């Protein structure tokens, strides 16, 4: 059971992190401009921008966490199905990490002027 959960997390951890990131950042992006998310600011950044940063870091952390066991399996000389799960998970999570960063950048810069 534990191995099944780990396999699922390796394969889908990054995807789940990206999904969370999409919905939360979309909510911040769409709603903050209307709902005063840009009124308050701290260290030159608006509350919405800080929210974006926090969500992005959290989601990146989930993706990295999903990479971790995959890397461990690869280094441990995994074979067969385990190797496949580790390899596919590694690439998939890497793509989602890049996607999360790519998606976080535009709203971060645009957040100053809705």
């Amino acid at each position, binding site marked *: 059971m534990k191995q099944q959960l780990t396999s699922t997390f390796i394969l889908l951890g990054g995807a789940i992190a990206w999904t969370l990131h999409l919905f939360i950042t979309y909510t911040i992006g769409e*709603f903050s401009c209307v709902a005063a998310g840009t009124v308050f600011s701290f260290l030159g950044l608006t509350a919405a921008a800080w929210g974006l940063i926090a969500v992005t870091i959290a989601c990146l952390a989930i993706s990295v966490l999903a990479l971790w066991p995959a890397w461990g399996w690869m280094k441990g000389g995994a074979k067969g*199905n385990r190797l496949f*799960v580790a390899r*596919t998970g590694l*690439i*998939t999570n890497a793509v989602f990490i890049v996607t999360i960063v790519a998606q976080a950048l*535009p*709203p971060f810069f645009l957040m100053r002027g*809705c």
Partner: protein
Amino acid sequence: MSENSETWDKQRKIFERVWRAPTGFRDWFATVNNQPFGNRFMLASMIFFFLGGIIALLMRVQLAVPDNDFIGPEVYNQLFTMHGSTMMYIVLLPFLEGLTIYLLPLVLGTREMAFPRMSAFSFWVFFFGGLLFYASFLFNAVPDAGWFVYPPLSSSKYSGLGVDFLLVGLGFIEIAGIGAGAEIAVTILKFRAPGMSLSKMPLFAWAWLVTAFMIIIAFSALFGATVLIEFDRALGTRFFDPDGGGNVLLWQHLFWFFGHPDVYIMFIPATGFVSMIIPTFAKRPIAGYSLVVMAIVVTGFLSFGLWVHHMFATGLPPVASGFFVAASLMIGLASGTQVFAWIATLWRSRPEIKTPLLYVLGFLALFVIGGFTGVMVAVLPFDLQAHDTYFVVAHFHYVLIGGVVFPILGALHYWLPLILGKMPSERLGKWSFWLIFTGFNITFFPMHVSGLKGMARRVYTYSENLDVGWLNMVSTVGSFVLGTGFVLVALNVFITYRRGKEAPKNPWGSGSLEWSNTADMPNYVYLQPPVVYSREPLWEKTPESEKDAELEKLSKAMISTPAEWRAALITDVISGRPQAIQRVAGPTYIPIIAAIFLFITSIATLGQSYIAALVTLALFLITVLYWVWPQDEGLRKFRVSDVPQRTGLSVEPTGTASSGWWAMASVLAVLTTIFGLLFYSYFYIRLYSPAWPQGEIAKPETLYSAIAYGILLLSAVPYFLAVRTFKDGNARKTISLLFATAFCGLVSMIWILLFSINAEFSPKLNAYGSLFHVLTWHMAILIGGGLAILAGAIVHVIKSRVNYQHGYIVSQMQITSLYWWFTLVVGALMYLVLHLSPYIL
């Protein structure tokens, strides 16, 4: 005759009796076997395809010259609506599903789909939905608001009965899609050949696994949205009515949350076909298997993050648009990976160019063009220029015809020898390919230019001053060449069916499992389930020394087990190792009866005979209840069976080994999407409303609602104790506690409904009123469903009191738990959103 072959012959006879499909006209409606329903899906969608094609040709004739009056603007609006709706809803996906329902058990090395009655039900519902679309012509009420039915154009103020035909028909297509999606997902997850781990799963199955989940989510979203817009039209709610505080853009969000993934829902299975055809002709395994799997998974997820790129021109906040541009560009990475993998597989392979491969090569060329223009329109500034022009029409036809229809045609020619047992004509195949390929490019390539010159789409004519007349004439000529190509394909299929040359076994020399069969395969397909050791089992012979003795023994035991009922092996999702033996449903009239009741309900709704609609809806629900109710006879057969002794596997699987658990997980995925959509709608409308609640409506009261929802949450206590006493083996106490749970649920449901009945504002007053009432109704229905499931659990515990720890009843309790805990979570969220959030947000 050896003892071994005698056993096989004897077992074959028994299996043929057990798995026999009913014959005769009457029994034609009772069969549930996957192959007839695969064929029916394909045949029906082909007929709809030709109807949609004729409509397209009429549109092209109208557009051949500037300022043409061949058909007026009203008819043109109807034609482009019907063309889009036909192709998007009742042609491409149903054909893909049909071919998959036919092939999946063969590819996975199993005997049947997970839920055969669901295949039958999905087909009938899809077919009736398609008939409803086209019945609109008989009533001179053809929908004319586009396949996307944007309000306010689609509101009752500006559109007539035609839009109702489209929306109700669409409801059918959504139900059919969700049913087929759930069935395909569970089949791939649990019904694989022993040894077929995730790493040995054919890419066809990977593509469909991802697609099936996408269908469940995207079609559920569309279903929820369709209900809301139909409420606006029929009941006068104000979700999308700006005069009543609603928001037209909300519909676009909800629609494109389905609409964009829908493109990939059709494209990903098509790539699955391509990934099966290319290695066969290249005579080598696919290059970069893991990368292709990654691309499929990434595409499936990212496709849900792109919906806003259809709305760039609506004036959304640039912040929101910004990251949808990023996601739109990222998805190109995943699609590109697959293209490179296919090219790498073909590289220096010297394949023999037969018709299926020809179509695949055509797909590669056209899809790359469609992909490039896709990247162009993903860039916000360019999209603002090209939006609603023929450039976009050219782009999505390159994606949908190039990226989906070409692989479908390749797949059709590729698997026809397995389906009909006869070889299609190569000469006709190649003629049809070249006609379709050249006709397609002549039709659609000029549209890039006419679009860039400013020709607007969805308009029945254009001015001569635009200087696009000659481009349109070229497109029209091309469309007839394209149409001729499709007629040749149909002719080729017909000639093959009537007098094609007999196909040899595995005519293309493929390595995948389905080709171990021929067209005259028995209904149970595999008497002995194959043990899978590689991705191309027909290419790689596994030495005896490397075979898995346990799996081989089990596979042999399945030859004679079980003999009294239809059954298939259940395997572990990740490792593919056998876990249990699952009973598979046999012939029944239930699916068609349920579909007919649903059909009559929709016709009664269209005719505004709401009493008749309620009666037939009740009959439909009773039929469904009968459907899911376990038959005692079946359970008795399980319990006297010697299958567990022979195989070491349970016949009453529990937990995630049971297909019922996965079916309930699919239902919860549907419900999560629908409630997510409702909550999103609530906050979206709230966001753009200056005051909340809108108008003169007072803030909702919190005390009584807290008690009503609190009682629902309180039911967690007796339910938790019921699960514990059930595990301890105390039947009497379990029954009492389940009754207590149901009582709490019932009181809560009635009280929650009273909030709607006693409200001082109607759902017609404004969007807030609509949201309050409709969300409340949804909550009550959710609890009502839970009460029905609880009642089922109570009856089963009572009936099975003697030995209620049987696997079946354990599974029933687990399924009930899934639903009830979900209901409690939604209940808590509903209270927070509906009753508390107006005080906070």
